[in-house]
């Protein structure tokens, strides 16, 4: 095994670059090094001006999403040896504005996420003295998969619809809405319907499925969206047949 590998890293320094440029670095090729370790090596040893986001280094914080050789991945969970002999091309996540180097502007997602109320909504909160809201293992299983989402936004980067229609509320936000809709303790499904069933919600999705392929946590946003399409369409038919009934 060669002892070095080339990282071609997208650089964008708004004060000097008018558009992103690629810069090559030689980093040690070690068996247990992820792309993130390579970037950290560059920052520590070769070029302290390189900017990128990271936090946990173990695939749970969702900060270090990048485009590696064209694929949206968590750079902490993508190993250099899988790309040997290289070179490895590291770019910021697609479909987002770039602030600097590999750092993207996540404001769009942060603004969209709360519109689907991704938290437990109760009509009446029971007093604490009454104890917990109990749930069976079967009820947990209904939504557990969607609760694995770490908001890393790889699915937005992978989604061709989001690339064409920035208004699209997006895979993770819809999957997280379903995480609460399917929770037996939640009573907020009706409140989420208006946002989810809008043209910028589930109906913008054409079921390409790239979101589910890109997800590093095994969440299936495409499945969540498809499943919710049936819920929303059934609700529309009900409203048409019984316009005056309250949900």
């Amino acid at each position, binding site marked *: 095994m060669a002892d070095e590998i080339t990282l071609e890293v997208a650089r964008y320094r708004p004060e000097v670059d008018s558009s992103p440029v690629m810069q090559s670095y030689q980093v040690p090729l070690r068996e247990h090094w992820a792309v993130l370790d390579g970037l950290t090596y560059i920052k520590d040893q070769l070029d302290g001006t390189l900017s990128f986001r990271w936090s946990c280094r173990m695939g749970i914080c969702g900060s270090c999403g990048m485009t590696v050789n064209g694929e949206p991945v968590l750079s902490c969970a993508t190993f250099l040896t899988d790309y040997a002999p290289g070179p490895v091309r590291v770019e910021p996540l697609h479909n987002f504005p770039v602030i600097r180097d590999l750092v993207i502007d996540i404001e769009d997602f942060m603004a969209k996420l709360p519109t689907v109320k991704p938290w437990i909504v109760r009509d009446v909160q029971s007093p604490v003295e009454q104890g917990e809201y109990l749930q069976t293992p079967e009820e947990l299983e209904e939504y557990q998969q969607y609760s694995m989402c770490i908001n890393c936004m790889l699915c937005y980067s992978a989604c*061709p619809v989001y690339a*064409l229609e920035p208004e699209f509320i997006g895979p993770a936000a819809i999957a997280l809405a379903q995480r609460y809709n399917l929770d037996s303790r939640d009573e907020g499904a009706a409140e989420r*319907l208006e946002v989810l069933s809008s*043209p910028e919600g589930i*109906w913008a999705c054409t079921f390409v499925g790239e979101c589910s392929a890109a997800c590093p946590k095994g969440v299936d946003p495409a499945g969540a969206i498809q499943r919710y*399409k*049936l819920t929303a*369409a059934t609700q*529309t*038919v009900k409203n048409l047949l019984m316009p005056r009934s309250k949900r």
Partner: protein
Amino acid sequence: MNHRRSPEPLLWLLFSSGGMAAALMVPILLFLFGIAIPLDWFDPSYDHLSAVLHNWITRLILFGLSALALFHWAHRFRYTLYDGLQLKRYGTPIAALCYGGAVAGSVIAAALLLTI
């Protein structure tokens, strides 16, 4: 309530039921009329098939299959033009063409089924 009334949920219902109906029934029809009968695996008489076709349940099912499959095509083709060819700026004429085509095709299917 969804205040922004959009036909999208109903069009999607037609699309998805069309996909389901076609996926379940077209392979059977293709097997029967494309493989089994031409290869003489069984040989129904013309009168027998004609009688089956003149039963109103058969006509209803065939009409449902044709119409739903056409709406499935319309919806998918519309989005292929929108996203694949990036023609969304012509959204209204494209939608009219696709769903209008599905309606026209359904009318033709109904006319054929009623006149044979």
